């Protein structure tokens, strides 16, 4: 039997390595908002209300560049629509929870948290209270994201740009999927997604972020059909 507390802490431990990329990215996000000339409170509000890394930067860049609100909001919606896929995967483990608990947990669904919790939940399918793992990863990411963006807002971009720390973002996601390159079917889906993203990169509203996964999932669907 695993206690709720133990599962929650397991979630914290599982996601903590990703802070290597989340913290610099948060600092950069906060600093960019100030550089673009926005009110500090408004920049921070994006972390609290939108709470979605890349989408916050693009949102602020579009607004400061004179794009209409509609374009900015649409872009955020398109970029963040990938959460629908995370929700569809996680719903298997959250089925039995009350509606209120589902609403609370939903706020904390983030890329790295989804990835690490999904691995844990797959390996502990019969265990009760496993949703505490999602809370552990999600609240950890939330806490460090708020702290990092506030640091960037207050202190400015104190990380030298020459370090190229933006490169930590692809690396953190590479660390998530690298184990799956042992499975050929997953490698196939990854390559379809990766090449689709390069081809679709210039599609409007940054839609390559959701279009590439859709193309890759269609490829997965066809692959499953052929295998059967």
């Amino acid at each position, binding site marked *: 039997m695993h206690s709720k507390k133990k599962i929650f802490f397991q979630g914290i431990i599982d996601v903590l*390595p990703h802070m290597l990329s989340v913290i610099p990215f948060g600092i950069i996000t906060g600093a960019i908002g100030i550089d673009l000339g926005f009110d500090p409170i*408004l920049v921070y*509000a*994006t972390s609290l*209300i939108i709470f979605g890394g890349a989408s916050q930067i693009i949102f602020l860049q579009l*607004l400061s560049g004179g794009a209409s*609100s509609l374009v*900015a*909001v649409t872009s*955020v*919606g398109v970029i*963040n629509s*990938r*959460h*629908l*896929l*995370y*929700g*569809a995967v*996680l*719903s*298997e483990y959250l*089925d039995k929870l009350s509606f209120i608990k589902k*609403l609370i947990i*939903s*706020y904390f669904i983030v*890329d790295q948290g989804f*990835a690490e919790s999904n691995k844990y939940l797959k390996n502990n399918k019969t265990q009760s209270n496993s949703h505490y793992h999602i809370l552990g990863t999600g609240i950890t990411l939330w806490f460090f994201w708020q702290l990092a963006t506030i640091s960037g807002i207050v202190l400015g971009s104190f990380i030298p740009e020459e*370090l190229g*720390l933006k*490169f*930590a*973002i*692809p*690396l953190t*996601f*590479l*660390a*998530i*999927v*690298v184990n*799956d390159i*042992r499975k050929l079917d997953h490698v196939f889906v*990854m390559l*379809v*997604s*990766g090449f689709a*993203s*390069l081809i679709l990169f*210039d599609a409007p509203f940054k839609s*390559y*972020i959701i279009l*590439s*996964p*859709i193309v*890759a*999932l269609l490829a*997965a*669907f066809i692959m*499953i059909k052929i295998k059967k």
Partner: protein
Amino acid sequence: MSWISIIASGIITYFSRMAMIALIDREMLGTKVKDVLNYVPAAVFPAIIFPGVFFNDFGNMVELTDPKIYGAIVALTVGFYSRNVIATIISGLLSYWFIIFFLLK
């Protein structure tokens, strides 16, 4: 206007997180859909990784000799054998820094 945009973006983002968890009944998804959902991590994350490695800040494709590509290859190799997130990220960053600060200087 900015505040209204933030709140609208927040509502849309929260909806994207909540919809499949709280509004959709799991039974509505067929077994075929559930099989495909196994591939969500493989389908989503490369679409973030590839542009981050193969495009520069201006959205142009980098050359095949770009330090980011070598960094990614090192991270991929270290990650494959170590199965460790910290080792993967650090090895990628260190090899990237080694190239841009020592080899290209």
